[in-house]
């Protein structure tokens, strides 16, 4: 069972959140804005490849209406069942470790 890295987890979550537009560009935008980290394209594309190799992710090519793309297709990203399981496991592990830590992380003044 392949484990998820932090960035991989964020990518999978972002794809799941962008249910209507599960595209690489939307994912990258969300990661940059919400997670406030700069994401190079090389890192993102490699992560996508890696997630696919682990069986967490699939995609199919889809024509795009966006004129700026100049007719280039886009990848519709889909998290597999296996990917969903991996995300859930990661959440459960995190939940266990976060449990009871609130007073430590946000000490009341």
């Amino acid at each position, binding site marked *: 069972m392949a484990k998820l890295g932090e960035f991989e987890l964020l990518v999978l979550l972002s794809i799941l959140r962008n249910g209507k537009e599960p595209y690489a*560009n939307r994912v990258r935008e969300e990661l940059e804005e919400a997670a406030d980290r700069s994401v190079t*394209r*090389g890192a993102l594309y*490699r992560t996508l490849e890696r997630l696919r190799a682990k069986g967490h992710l699939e995609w199919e090519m889809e024509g795009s209406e*966006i004129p700026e*793309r*100049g007719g*280039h*297709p*886009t990848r519709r990203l889909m998290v597999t069942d296996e990917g969903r399981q991996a995300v859930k496991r990661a959440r459960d592990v995190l939940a266990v470790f976060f449990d009871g830590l609130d007073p430590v992380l946000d000490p009341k003044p």
Partner: protein
Amino acid sequence: MSSLPPPLLERLLAWAYRSDPSNASILGDLREDYATLAQVRGVARARRWYRREAVLLTAGRFLHHPILVSTGRTFMNESFLSALREDTVYALRSLRRSPGFALFTALVIGLGVGATTAVFSVLEPFVLAPLPFAGADELVWISNAPPQGATSQSAFTSRTSNLRDFRAQARSFEGITGYNAFFEQGAYSLTGDGEPERLVGVGVAHDFLDVLGVEPALGRGFTEEEGLWVGPPAVVLSHGFWVRRFGSDPDLVGGAITLNDTPFTVAGVLPASFDFSSIFTPGVPVDFLLTFAVSDETDRWGNTMFFIGRLRPGATATSAQSELDAIIVGLEEAQPDRWGLGARVTPLRDKISAPFSSALALLGAAAATLLLIVCVNVTNLLLARSPGRAREVAVRKAFGAPRGRVVRQLMVETLVISLGGAAVGAVLAWIAVRLVSGAAGLAIPFIDHLSLNGSALLFATAVAVVTGLLVGLIPALQVADGGEAGVLRAGGRGAGTSRGARRLREGLVVAEVGLACVMLVVGGLLIRSFQAVTAIDLGFESDQAVAWQLNPSVDFETQQMRADFYRALTARVADVPGVQEVGLIDALPLGRERTWGAQLPELVGSDAQGFSIFPHMIDSGYLEAMGIPIVAGRGFLPEDGLGNEEVMLINESGALRMFGDVDVVGRSLRAGWGEERRIIGVVADIRHSSPEMEAGNQAYFHFAQVPDYSTLDMVVRASAPLDRVTQAVSAALAEIDPSMPRRESWTLASTVDTVLSPRRFTLRILGAYGIVALLLAGLGIYGVLTQSVAERKPEIGIRMALGASGSDVLRSVMGRTLALTTAGIAIGAVMSLAGSRLLSSMLYGTSPTDPVAFVTMAVILLLVASAAGGIPALQASRIRGIRALRSE
């Protein structure tokens, strides 16, 4: 449509990801973000971003390539990378031991890289970069089909009825649009807030921006209603003008500006990426677009427009041409008396680059030749260094270094040097590009937007790497092959002394001299042409003359009032101290021109072909102010005005061509739409279109009798210093009409200068390249002979000891120099003869085989070669026999 990312980088990415099934989507992602960024942060920022992403993606692709990383058996595996690192460190260390050599070689490579990169930057917009239009490859230029030999603009433009009928009938196009080519004649004064200003507006068909696929940066394009003959007046401002005059005020859109006392709605602002003038009218700045009606009214004006069409998918320029040909045949059958029908379809890109293609090809060829000379030179430098390296290599090989490793190490060394050369070259190219784009008056498309961009830097690096690989290989192989134990025993005399090695170096010098000879001959031919062009008698005196364009703010009710105004104005200017003569014309020479038809009255109504004439409206002072002599009869007098007999002047060549005689005073001519006019004088020819073009049939009319002009140019001949007179005249003009917009005055000398600028531009670049080539050739000769003298020292010593004199030795070394140079010149001359035919379209008054150019260049080369070979020859002649042998 927004701009596209740099095509070269996109191609690089497509190549790097060619085996990835998702590559198209990756390119699409990048395009999408590029467009967003370009819109939000500007194109420059977006290009920088794209460059970084492209480099990172490409590098990342290779560094993480599964084959490279995992199998370990391929070219660029981990151990290779670490070995490469080692080699680089070793190379840097060995170069630090001979910094002079490293620096000098990098400098020489930098010259070649700089020269090619600078030319690449000029060529890139023509060849590689897309035009700033969506689907630019579908756009075609449709001009009229001019009669054989016609050169004037009116022969190439077309009537608006042609546009109407082509639009209605042609199926090859998604749309056809056009602009009024004679826009300069409509000058607009902007009044209202701030200084009044004279502006240039171009009339376009209302769908101009739609067909080109240009999306305004702000606001909208023209509506169909605005395109009607008396439609609501509207303008679309050029980006530059909007920024300069209105401080990029976005609220201006939708408001109005006052042009020639008429309020015009500001419909929109063009995007910065689309500069009308840099594409269609290089050298003539355009401030705004307005509509030009496609209607019966404008059709009566004759040939006015250039058309641009967008091809339907599947149609080509050729298929569109055949369709238009068929349509024209149909129209001619239906309307036998219709005139001015014709169409010639060319891809828009070709049309834009065509006038410059020979000059640009020449620059490209010159840069490539220079690079070749650089390669030969550096190879020679490396070969000269080989003997010194042979010992070191022999030691390494003795310790078991495989041959491949030694070659690679030497190549890495050369590559390190050539990357240094890339840096030098980039700096040189940057300087060159700055100089070129700053040069005023260069009428070359895109020149205002020239910059050393990412593609150019990539190009510079690629050139340097390829150069490094090319020049490093032969020396590296030679050194690596140098005998092992033999070299060690021979006490440092290594591979370099062999007869073969010397032959190779001498052969390279001969090649270098030959190439330099070609460059010099080409430069010489261009210099001769330039001399011939500057020696042309233009027919008017350009010194001590200043001009203004007059655009009075007054609305004249009658032609008499207009004529009186100008008469009073010239009278006032003539009183300014220092003003010798003052004259008026609708358009000064070497500027714009138009043509009219003309017929001899006795042939009117017959089938005889008419003539075409260049009409000029002048006042009575013009000919004298310009220094144009009257050959027969008289010029205009102040009395020849409105209400008097309709008269005209023609030039000598025109008289000969139309009447077969110069003595035509008293005869008549029917010109344009006007009545028959009596010819009262014959004036000398002037070169009106360009210095290189013979005078056409020129006709001069009195401006009061033929008021067919919208503005007049005033020319002042000064007897006092020009700047003082210019100031005084400007002040006088302000007195007469305070709100007349005044763009600065210009001198006639500067006009002539601008016309010569493209020639001077090529000449300067080629001149600089030629000098570099000459220096490199001299350097090559010096290097090879110094080396060979050093190697032959013992031999020379023995000869001297046996009784040879210093001058014998001097003669022998100089003989070698001259033999090498002559061989080079011979080869170069043959190559030049073959190549200079390609040059003939750029030559004027000079034959491509001009003996003066060939002989002068050969002499210069021989002189430089003698100087270069003289130093080692003198050194050789001073060798003292015994001492030379002892030093061995």
